[in-house]
């Protein structure tokens, strides 16, 4: 009996500590964003805002709204990358799962290796290459580079989803006279919807997070995306406006949290499938 009690004390103690570590910083950022700068710089800090205020939100929306240019750019870039990644991943995932050719294993090997290479190594050369083809400092250039970054994982993920769809359905449609493209669009793709959603969400989340691609390929402030824009504009050498930064953290994270909580079922299923099978 006593041992049992100790066991659950240990269990719930560990659980509380780990959850505190994971969740408390989020609480801390949230309450700081509702503090005035005066209160945020108080030491010892207050654990519940004494005088909650929206002033740093108002400040962000009125005075520091360059942030929203980065925000908008991030939506455009992530949106396009997510869309293109999904289309390309569906095509190649289907081909890799349904047709067995010699080149399949080569393609898979290339995709696997691509995930390992450091991004900086690629940027060193892309900086030059993009300049040559006139895509440096443009959104299409950034989108293409990020698309390439997303493809290896998502193609493999899509392949594993297609593999779980039985071939018999396609055979029936084929005998009924449907063309190959019709089979892919009307019959198989709807069956891998969970995989599609997982790919859209994964690529959106990962490109939303990008720093290195945008930092090297974009120099024009009006084209910058969130991470680089925030780092260059709001993180001065000496003095940080911490209330503003905490507000930026909240606004920059909200779309991701919403996406995750609405689609978490697909997201988790997709990631687990990708990791466990891939």
């Amino acid at each position, binding site marked *: 009996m006593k041992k049992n009690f100790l066991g659950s004390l240990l*269990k719930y103690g*560990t*659980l509380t500590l*780990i*959850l505190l570590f*994971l*969740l408390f*910083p989020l609480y*801390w950022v949230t309450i700081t964003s509702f503090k005035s700068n005066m209160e945020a*710089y108080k*030491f010892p*800090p207050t654990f519940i805002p004494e005088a909650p205020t929206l002033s740093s939100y108002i400040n962000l929306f009125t005075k520091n709204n360059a942030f929203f240019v980065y925000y908008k750019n991030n939506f455009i870039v992530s949106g396009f990358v997510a869309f293109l990644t999904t289309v390309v*991943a569906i*095509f*190649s995932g289907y*081909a890799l799962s349904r*047709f067995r*050719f010699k080149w399949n294993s080569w*393609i898979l090997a*290339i995709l696997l290796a*691509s995930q*390992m*290479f*450091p991004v*900086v*190594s*690629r*940027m*060193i*050369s892309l*900086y*030059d290459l993009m*300049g040559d083809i006139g895509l440096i400092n443009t959104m299409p250039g950034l989108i293409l580079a990020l698309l390439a*970054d997303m*493809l290896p994982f998502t193609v493999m993920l899509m392949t594993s989803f297609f593999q779980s769809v039985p*071939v018999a359905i*396609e*055979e029936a449609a084929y*005998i009924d006279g449907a063309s*190959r493209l019709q089979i892919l669009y009307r019959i198989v793709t709807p069956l891998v919807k969970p995989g599609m959603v997982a790919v859209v969400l994964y690529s959106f989340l990962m490109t*939303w*997070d990008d*720093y290195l691609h945008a*930092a090297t390929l974009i120099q024009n402030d009006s084209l910058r995306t969130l991470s680089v824009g*925030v*780092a260059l504009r709001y993180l001065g050498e000496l003095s*940080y406006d*911490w209330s503003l*930064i905490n507000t*930026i*953290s909240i606004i*920059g994270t909200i779309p*991701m949290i919403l*996406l*995750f909580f609405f689609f*978490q079922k697909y997201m988790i299923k997709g*990631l*687990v499938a990708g*990791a*466990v099978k891939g």
Partner: protein
Amino acid sequence: MGNTASRKIRKSYFKRSTGDRLFSGILVLPAVVITVIFIIVPIIDSVIKSFLDFRVKNIISNQPGKWNNFENYIKLFQNEKLTGAIITTFSFVLFVVILQFVFGMLLALILNSKIKGARFLRSIMMTPWVVPTIISALIWMWMFQPQYGLMKYIVQLFTGGAVTDFAILNNPSTALLGIGIAALWKQVPLTTLLFLAGLQNVPDDMLEAATIDGANKVRQFFSIVLPYMKSVINVAMSMAIINNFKQFPLIWTMTGGGPDNATTTLAILSYREAFVSNNIGSGAAVTTVWMLLMVVVVFIYKKLMGETEVD
């Protein structure tokens, strides 16, 4: 009977048509072309550049780089920048990956043990994972802030006022630890999620039988749970190794590689050489060494995991 019939149809469906090869080729073409142009070619190009004297001014004036007798490599090894960065990278990867395994496994085991609200906890504990990297850097910089930070207050409180100048990121001997904590915060949730999925593969009846036979929980964990979770652990840990090897924005934002180069990993060093010092050839030399190390590490890891499989 039905089985052979369906196999026959499958054969005719996939092998008879002459267009299969063409159709499949066209479908995979976009992915292959994009990957080759934007990943494979740049990688090869950067390896070539690592042997050249190539600077940003070469790009601006459109001049090719000149072969410089391994000077990029020699310089990097001579001024000990590279060895320092290698050691820093390995310490960082080792620290984060090991603790990630421990915390992820603990949390997964607890959440899997039929406690109340496990589903709810599983979903909220994922939140740090969706927080963008640069924002997690900002969150932890604010926690660690040297004048008004929460951590300074907590350390002061727990040491009874003995330590009043806790500034983890400003001290060369602790800065890497500070970044490691932020990295763990963002990465533990996904590891936990994957481990939770892996725990579903562990057969309950085996555990029950072991309990009846009198094996305690620790024994059960090592001889039943771990072996069944091997493939998931393998995937989760290779992902963690690769991601932390590549970690850039977190370190760049939190310390920029400082103080006193204490957090200059290979990612930071290569970026700084190529895009801050504008010496692209030297940056490429760093990434080339880095890629080689990565191949070695993945190889050793695979080998180790493969050997434990034999046991």
